[in-house]
């Protein structure tokens, strides 16, 4: 039922309160018509009798208390869906901005989605080869996984995301597509992504949702939801393998905090609303594979950790929901190692079931464990060396230090190379051969005979 309402009762930040509304529905979509003929979009967020609180995505600037007309559409927020989405560019609310006209919808999709039934999920097992040693070998990306990149301002997370897209797309067939959502990133960054997609020749398989830093802030709350609705449609109705890149989740969370405080909600940690975990979960949990379709949704959210602090609520809560994380390291970045992946704090939870015999190679798991264990030792040796000086280290520690140096330079610092899994694993063994066999305690003798003794 569509109803119209004239005038507002109260304005506060992006929140508008109406009074005397006939038959409002919770979370329905509303249009606000201004005096000058422009239109804003919003949704109902709370109802008390005939009083209704609205969240206005484009902000409340220019709204008049008397003359604003509000149209309640009686529908939740929906976006048009069709295979034609591929190759198109939309704004943060899912409206086309590439001048190619409206989408002719095959169906309409509610942006909030619905929770996947755990029994309908298919457990993800297929590796996505990224051609990046630190990821393929140590934090393997699996189709249907949600694996965020934890970065900091000024580090090369965008380059890494683009490299993953470029190298992963080559390996795959035409069932592969990318959904890209920008939330509050700079215009140059959005442009960088667009150009990179173009030069990789995948632009006709990309759907972009752009809310850049000078776009309305509250709109960002909807942007990832539009993107995921499109991704779910393409994956589960059109049977495509979708890689979703969400950047920057930190801006998203800040928009949520801004809105929450204008609603007068009780804040949790660092002023973020108490429901930040549940809210982030409704985004991240939309990755996966279901048993009624052939496609998959894989998510790579990017977030910049404020002050490089991994215990900040945004990376912290994200890490509790996602299936691992790729953490970038400021120290490696400044010494020129690219990609600057901090392998010790990075993790892929789905890796264990997607590697090994029949998936990658039988030595993969043991090799990865050994590299992790040794690299942890490198850190201890470094700490000791910083106190007593490198010369005073024992021979064993010196060997470990040399291994660490080679690991940073050769294994991590691969630049823009695209390495096959075999190349990556063989390189791992080559590095292990810098150490005597009895120091490799995570690999059993059979594998050592086969791979160490060459």
């Amino acid at each position: 039922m569509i109803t119209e309402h004239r005038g507002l009762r109260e304005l506060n930040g992006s929140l508008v309160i109406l009074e005397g509304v006939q038959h409002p529905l919770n979370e329905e979509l509303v249009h606000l018509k201004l005096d000058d003929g422009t239109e804003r979009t919003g949704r109902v967020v709370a109802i008390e009798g005939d009083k209704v609180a609205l969240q206005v995505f484009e902000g409340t600037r220019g709204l008049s208390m008397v003359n604003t007309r509000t149209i309640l559409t009686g529908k939740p927020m929906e976006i048009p869906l069709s295979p034609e989405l591929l190759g198109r560019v939309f704004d943060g609310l899912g409206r086309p901005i590439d001048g190619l006209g409206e989408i002719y919808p095959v169906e309409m999709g509610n942006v909030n989605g619905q929770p996947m039934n755990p029994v309908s999920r298919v457990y993800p097992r297929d590796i996505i080869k990224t051609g990046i040693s630190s990821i393929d070998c140590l934090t393997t990306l699996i189709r249907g996984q949600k694996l965020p990149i934890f970065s900091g301002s000024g580090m090369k997370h965008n380059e890494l995301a683009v490299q993953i897209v470029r190298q992963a797309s080559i390996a795959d067939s035409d069932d592969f597509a990318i959904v890209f959502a920008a939330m509050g990133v700079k215009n140059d960054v959005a442009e960088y992504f667009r150009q990179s997609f173009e030069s990789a020749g995948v632009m006709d398989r990309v759907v972009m949702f752009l809310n850049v830093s000078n776009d309305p802030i509250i709109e960002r709350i909807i942007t990832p939801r539009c993107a995921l609705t499109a991704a779910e449609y393409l994956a589960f109705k059109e049977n495509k393998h979708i890689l979703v890149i969400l950047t920057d989740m930190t801006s998203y969370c800040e928009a949520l905090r801004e809105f929450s405080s204008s609603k007068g909600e009780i804040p949790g940690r660092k002023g973020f609303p108490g429901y930040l975990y549940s809210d982030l979960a409704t985004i991240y949990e939309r990755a996966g594979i279901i048993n009624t379709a052939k496609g998959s949704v894989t998510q790579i959210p990017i977030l910049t950790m404020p002050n490089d602090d991994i215990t900040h609520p945004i990376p912290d809560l994200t890490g509790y929901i996602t299936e691992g994380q790729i953490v970038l390291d400021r120290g490696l970045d400044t010494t020129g190692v690219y990609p600057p992946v901090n392998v010790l704090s990075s993790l892929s939870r789905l890796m264990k079931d997607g590697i090994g015999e029949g998936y990658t190679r039988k030595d993969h798991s043991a090799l990865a464990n050994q590299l992790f264990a040794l690299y942890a030792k490198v850190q201890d040796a470094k700490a000791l060396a910083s106190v007593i000086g490198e010369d005073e280290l024992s021979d064993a520690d010196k060997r470990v230090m040399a291994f660490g140096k080679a690991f940073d330079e050769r294994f991590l610092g691969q630049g823009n190379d695209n390495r096959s899994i075999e190349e990556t694993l063989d390189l791992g063994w080559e590095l292990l051969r810098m150490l005597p066999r009895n120091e490799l305690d995570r690999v059993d003798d059979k594998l050592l005979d086969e791979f160490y003794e060459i």
Partner: protein
Amino acid sequence: MKESNLIFGINGPVVTIKGKTTLSMLEMVYVGEQKLVGEVIALDSDKTTIQVYEDTAGLAPGEPVYGTGSQLCAELGPGILQNIFDGIERPLLALQAQSGAFIDKGLNTSALDEEKLWDVTLCVKEGDLLSGGEVYAETQETPAISHKIMLSPLLSGKIVSVNPDGAYRLRDTIAVLEDQRGERHELTLCQRWPIRMPRPVAKRLTASRPLITGQRILDTLFPVAKGGAAAIPGGFGTGKTMTQHQLAKWCDADLIVYVGCGERGNEMTQALQEFSELIDPRTGKSLMERTVLIANTSNMPVAAREASIYTGITLAEYYRDMGYHAAIMADSTSRWAEALREISGRLEEMPADEGFPAYLPSRLSEFYERAGYMEVLSHGEGSVTIIGAVSPQGSDFSEPVTQNTKRFTRCFWALDKSLAYARHYPAINWTNSYSEYLGDLEQWYHDNVGADFMQCREEISSILYEESSLMEIVKLIGADVLPDDQKLTIEIARLIRVGFLQQNAFHPDDTYVPPEKQLKMMRVILYLYHKCQQIVALQVPIGRLLETGLFDKLTKMKYDVPNDRLDLLDAYLSEIDNALGNYIRK
């Protein structure tokens, strides 16, 4: 259904009704035309507040609210095992049949299969007097578990008619009971129980038997008793879920309730798959036959997440009342506490620590107190063990949920990020963790595993303690400056850490290790330690001892000795003698 009331306000999952209503506190209600499940959580003379267990989008003021006259209950009867439910005990497979791969709103389905025929044996006759909680029939629910059908704890009286043994459906009447007031009750295969109320027992007993988990660091260093409560706190990526899965797979409880509370969807899928494929080493049957899963993933409605913990513990208590040892894994109680915080925020209650409501500690203690080793109303003994994962914000153990959980559990298995980074799993920190059950369990270990078990345990734990203080020095000046006896301590501690505490969940033998093997491994390690101590006292440099290769060999004994060839471990002792004999004679 009672007369309807009308919705006045909606705020997220919280719905209010204006004015005085006839609804009662904690009554279960149906909200709106779509009949969303909800529960009354606050009442005063101006308004009634309801939390709704489903998404409230599309709900409008003026829609009706129907009371049901009863509290939110769990349906208890055969068919619970091998099933996977959501937080309010709706079977997820039935929901899938109704709405496909995504869960719709307003789905209504019976918790248990009403059509399935169960082979029932009655164990009462006409004229028998039954009191609450006593068994009147039995059926083989799964090959592993015989389901005892018990009288509701609230009823008692005389059996006035009994049907013959045979095949019955869940709601068929199999006997009739007349209570003291002369009222007749038809007894079926199932009963209902309000999830927020602990099921009554005859007596609480002291927990004196350990829950054997097959995980060396737990069984040996920090054991939990059957009927105890343990907490596993740890930041993300430290292996909480992995540890919970290991416990669910291998612990020697009769029955497992696994609650995925606000966690990942893929993890529940994995649990479902793995538990169906794995074979229980004790019964030789699929592990799923003793397991029930409750999955309320993080993107499912937040109020149902709050209820899922109570649903889980009620199911566990029900099987305890039959005389079984049940264990409940709650992953994670922090998500449950956050659900409390979220609802509390919507009610505009005054927040305490970090926005959590002031009643957080009392809710936590109510939950953990439902664990216990009990004499049950059906005259046997049964227990519920609670193992709760805690996900502290920012890995900071001083936050309210971890701190309050510590107060109400007697076992604390602290997961450590730096161990997890070094891929030392299980990443349980041996200096921060503790178990208060050691004293209670000492006798059991003495009688059932070995008289020297506790002595070995203490020695192992003091070596680890000594190492951690030596490490402070090593970190400053390097290991080379230590005298040889301290170097030996460090080497032995390394052997204990890598060869004993570290356990590989993916290795066929190492994933579960019986207590006998744990003890023998400790004996071998300590034997080596004592021998080496003697030799070091004779001024033999430690490097010579390391060259024997004994340390490397012992590090790998966990893989080299299969669980069914424990005699091989005795050979290690003579090998140590042979290798070190020269030094001692000199």
